[in-house]
């Protein structure tokens, strides 16, 4: 799986390289996914997403540990890791892209901002383009809260759902991102 490391490493580990650009980061973003199923709704949360955002260029990257998704039920978590996501083989999901605010808008300016997000989502070792809309709130403390919701189809990422449960799992999974960036 291509890694999100280059930009994340550059930004988080060698700040001097990009000292001229204001960069924002977080290692505790929350990613939630929800799937409505006839037997039972399935939900899981990951509170350890790492991300870097450069408002001046719009560059944005995420790196998420698959094993860090927590379910209420042990069996769901086991099936998620071993049968569907194969987390031993593909331990991370990544997103690399660009966040484009409305013309002339500055994401670091205090207030609420809306922006388009375009990039490549890599789950289960399969890359797919992703487009969504994000809302960002730049606070007086200099932090930027960002959130968005999008849909992911397991079949788009070669995630095989066994025939026995195929009809019991939603065709697309709703993913919600909630993250607070602080200046690095």
């Amino acid at each position: 799986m291509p890694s999100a490391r280059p930009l994340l490493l550059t930004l988080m580990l060698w700040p001097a390289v990009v000292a001229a650009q204001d960069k924002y980061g977080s290692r505790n973003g929350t990613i939630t996914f929800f799937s409505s199923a006839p037997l039972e709704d399935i939900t899981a949360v990951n509170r350890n997403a790492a991300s870097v955002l450069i408002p001046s260029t719009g560059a944005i990257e995420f790196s998420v540990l698959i094993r860090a998704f927590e379910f209420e039920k042990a069996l769901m978590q086991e099936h998620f890791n071993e049968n569907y996501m194969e987390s031993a083989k593909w331990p991370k999901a990544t997103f690399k892209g660009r966040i484009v605010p409305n013309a002339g808008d500055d994401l670091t300016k205090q207030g609420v901002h809306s922006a388009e997000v375009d990039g490549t989502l890599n789950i289960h070792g399969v890359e797919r383009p992703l487009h969504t809309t994000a809302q960002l709130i730049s606070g007086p403390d200099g932090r930027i809260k960002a959130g968005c919701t999008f849909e992911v189809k397991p079949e788009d990422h070669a995630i095989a759902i066994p025939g026995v449960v195929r009809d019991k799992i939603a065709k697309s999974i709703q993913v919600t991102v909630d993250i607070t960036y602080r200046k690095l």
Partner: protein
Amino acid sequence: MKRRSFLVIGLLAALVAAFLGYRAWNETVPEAADHKPEMALPAGELFLAFQQDEAAAGRSYNGKLIQVQGAVREARTEEDGRLIVLLETGDAMGAVLCEFPIGAKVPGAGTSVTIKGYCAGYNFDVLLQRCAFVPEHR
């Protein structure tokens, strides 16, 4: 008579299977507090293993209940009540990040602690989830 006995045994077996299935389906994710760790090592050693070869360390540690020992770099309680403890690793850019359930006692910075938790992998920090403190034996 024989046929009735088979029916009763079959019914009982079906009931037991249904009960076991129901219990397995509803079993919650295990907490470290209730289980014995599979291995124990210093926090810095665990972090170094992931830094040097993430894939190999992942094969050794991911999904396993690990006990680590180290000094507390930072401890904070999140808005939802979860305790987060960062253990020193000898690398300022990364830590062993231990997530505790709501209600865990906050240790002081610099304190030496022993913690067990389920390893989720390495994402700049090594992440241990559903952690519990291991009492020091004197």
